[in-house]
């Protein structure tokens, strides 16, 4: 059946088999038409249906207590300190990249957040804790507020905190070494705060302390795949009923360690540009590396049954996810494994590639990384007619452990406004990044957005993909 480029899966494989089409048969339909299958029918019937009908996914067949939905979003990004302002910046092409100076390394560029650090913390909290913790505390409180949950009457022992981080402890360790250098490396001047600041669970633990959460809290160390990994962990814990509310996503304080700039620079992978707003330029032929950014994005995740019970506003459903590993190199990505990860997420979601309306890419602006991801995407989405592809790092830089969660948030409003924000700064598309559906430099209005697929990949070959569906 070929009416338009849209692929619509059959609701029920058993019904499809009974109809004589067999498992996996697909019909290509326009957005306002769906397929109705009847066990007794020998052919699929094309019927008009309300424009709200979404291509079915496998998660929708699960019981409500196994379906995981997003009910709140809290974030700070270099170009916005809440979901609305970030979306506005993306649609109006406002970058958050600025000139930045850090000790030892000197002048560079970075994505810098300017959220109100004292909205949820005292000066003493800020002095004692870490920047990643502060970012996390802000994002978590904002997410809970956004969710409309009756927090005062929430059983905090049933709340879990799952925070993705690329790294943690470099900032604090560098600070202490800087301090003791002034005392001729006398280690008795090394702060007693160093250990609680640098334990790997710190950002999640600071959120727990701030919000009185007594359920599980920990970080998920997953390089730059961590934002997605935090979401996935939260969803898994909800499905296991280890918690009733998950605060999940990722944070980054990475711009406060000179080491990350120096290391990317030594790798010839640190971006530079006379105009900071144009420095992060994935897919452009003149891209020259990564703009390091800080930020955080945490979601409140709930089981659909709980969200329905409190009549919560739902911003999307986690209908599929996957993580895998390249096992090929410390830094170079492997497009074959990345494509496998994307395909695994699609398969688990029960979706075809063409069911995805927006692919939010990981691309960081490095020469090989962008090319490799585009190769993986070409493999999966190369023949799709409805799939748009964009990149959010072109605005905010690479927010490391927060990147996946922030970039997903930047796209989620497309469910409602039907606009795909573009990848900016692409003056000349690198031919090796050529892909159908790339949205470049100008926002694109689309008829509807039902599914968003979010890529997030990291060093040591860690890959993560999440698919969020409109509900």
């Amino acid at each position, binding site marked *: 059946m070929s009416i338009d480029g849209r692929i619509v899966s059959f609701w029920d494989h058993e019904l499809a088999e009974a109809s004589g089409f067999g498992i996996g048969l697909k019909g290509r339909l326009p957005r306002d038409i769906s397929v109705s299958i009847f066990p007794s029918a020998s052919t699929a019937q094309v019927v008009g249906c309300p424009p709200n009908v979404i291509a079915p996914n496998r998660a929708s067949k699960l019981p409500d207590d196994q379906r995981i939905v997003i009910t709140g979003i809290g974030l700070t990004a270099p170009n916005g300190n809440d979901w609305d302002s970030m979306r506005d910046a993306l649609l109006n092409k406002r970058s958050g990249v600025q000139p930045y100076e850090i000790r030892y390394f000197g002048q560079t560029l970075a994505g810098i957040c300017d959220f109100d650090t004292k909205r949820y913390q*005292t*000066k*003493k909290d800020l*002095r*004692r804790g870490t920047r990643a913790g502060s970012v996390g505390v802000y994002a978590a409180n904002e997410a809970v507020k956004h969710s409309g949950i009756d927090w005062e009457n929430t059983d905090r022992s049933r709340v879990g905190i799952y925070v993705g981080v690329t790294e943690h402890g470099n900032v604090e360790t560098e600070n202490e070494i800087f*301090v003791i250098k002034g005392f001729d490396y006398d280690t008795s*001047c090394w*702060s*007693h*705060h160093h250990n609680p600041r640098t334990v790997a669970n710190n950002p999640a633990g600071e959120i727990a302390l701030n919000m009185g959460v007594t359920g599980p809290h920990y970080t998920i160390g997953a390089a730059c795949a961590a934002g997605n990994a935090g979401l996935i962990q939260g969803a898994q814990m909800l499905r296991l009923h280890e918690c009733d509310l998950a605060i999940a996503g990722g944070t980054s304080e990475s711009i406060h360690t000179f080491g990350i700039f120096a290391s990317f620079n030594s790798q010839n992978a640190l971006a530079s540009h006379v105009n900071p707003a144009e420095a992060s330029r994935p897919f452009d032929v003149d891209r020259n590396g990564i703009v390091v950014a800080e930020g955080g994005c945490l979601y409140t995740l709930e089981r659909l049954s709980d969200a329905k019970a409190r009549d919560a506003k739902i911003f999307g459903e986690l209908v599929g996810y996957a993580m895998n590993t390249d096992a090929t190199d410390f830094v170079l990505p492997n497009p074959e494994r990345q494509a496998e990860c994307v395909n695994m997420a699609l398969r688990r979601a029960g979706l075809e590639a063409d069911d995805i309306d927006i692919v939010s890419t990981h691309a960081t602006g490095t020469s090989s990384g962008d090319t490799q991801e585009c190769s993986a995407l070409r493999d999966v989405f190369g023949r799709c007619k409805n799939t748009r592809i964009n990149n959010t790092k072109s605005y905010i830089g690479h927010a490391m452990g927060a990147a996946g969660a922030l970039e997903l948030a930047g796209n989620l409003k497309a469910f409602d406004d039907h606009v795909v924000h573009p990848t900016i700064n692409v003056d000349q598309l690198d031919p090796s990044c050529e892909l159908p559906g790339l949205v470049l430099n100008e926002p694109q209005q689309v008829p509807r957005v039902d599914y968003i697929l979010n890529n997030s990949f990291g060093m040591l070959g860690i890959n993560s993909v999440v698919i969020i569906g409109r509900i």
Partner: protein
Amino acid sequence: MTPAEIRNEILDILDDISPDEDLDSLDDEKPFREQLELDSMDFLDIVMELRKRHRVQIPEEDYGHLASMHSTVTYLEPKMKEI
């Protein structure tokens, strides 16, 4: 340093450690912990700051002398009078 200067220095350290507190009404005779939200890590900050700022070493067995402003200044006076 004179006792008054030592007191001012301790106030400055406390202001760093507990920036949200109002130190103007501090009673020198009362224990810090009865007036300020100080925990053991904050207390160690006092010790650390004295070490960093003035190279004053305070052995653990003497920590009890730092209970109140009065006892702290009295304890530190001989250690800091040459500073």
